[in-house]
């Protein structure tokens, strides 16, 4: 299936409540998910926000991932992941910066991975 692209601008994109999307999504800027997404979600420097009503079952590769809803799958965030108390997370999580709020349900394998290979001493 050909990947679906959101527009290249940094404006927000929204998958609203009641909307279900299956497939490969490439996005720029910010993508808010209040509906259901199954497949892959990719963004070079973008932010994925899974809202409290959102359900994502996907392979995710983004810069920042904020989870307030349900997530299952693998999420790789090169900058950070935030998991809030309404979140239910399962699968694998890889990031250099992980923020978890008290009350969040996180049943995931967590891999703390550095942002970038640091350059050595002079």
């Amino acid at each position, binding site marked *: 299936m050909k990947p679906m692209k959101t527009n290249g601008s940094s404006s927000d994109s929204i998958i609203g409540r009641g909307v279900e999307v299956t497939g490969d999504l490439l996005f720029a800027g910010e993508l808010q998910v209040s509906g259901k997404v199954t497949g892959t979600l990719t963004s070079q420097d973008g932010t994925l926000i899974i809202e409290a009503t959102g359900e994502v079952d996907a392979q995710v590769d983004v810069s920042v991932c904020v989870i307030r809803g349900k997530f299952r799958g693998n999420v790789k965030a090169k*900058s950070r992941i935030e998991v809030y108390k309404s979140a239910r997370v399962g699968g694998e999580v890889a990031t*250099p*910066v*992980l923020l978890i*709020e008290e009350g969040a349900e996180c049943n995931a394998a967590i891999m*703390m991975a*550095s942002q970038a290979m*640091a*350059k*050595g001493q002079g």
Partner: protein
Amino acid sequence: MKSDGESIEANFSLRQRIEGAVGLTRGLGRGLVDSSNALLRRVTKAKPKPEVVDTSLRIAHYNLVLMDGDGQVVWGMEYDTGGPFSFRPGHRLWICCEFTNRSAHEAGIAEFEIELTGEDGSVLSRFGDSFGDIVVVQPGETRKFVGQWSL
């Protein structure tokens, strides 16, 4: 001259009037007390609430600082968090940094610090740890350093 009956009636009427006046005075008094209590309650309620101290941090970057056995900084690196975010009470935060020795010489590290910095570059919090002994990082070798915070 008034008869006994007239006198009793007049006394009764006077007593009624006095009791009425006393009752009215009592009522007014009660009203005043109620009003002052209400005013007091209002004044008490109007007292300014104790100031809530905002302990949240707005984090924009973090730094890894490596030190040798003498406490001298041997290496440092700044990382971006991908945009500022709030670190509030009830949150736990883990940060992982990596150092790869790309030089031709081994590097000796005795302690490390990870600093959380704000949008203006000021250091908001530090996590530090020492190894007790010097950890030698060979050329080409990578070491991970993890810091954790809770508010």
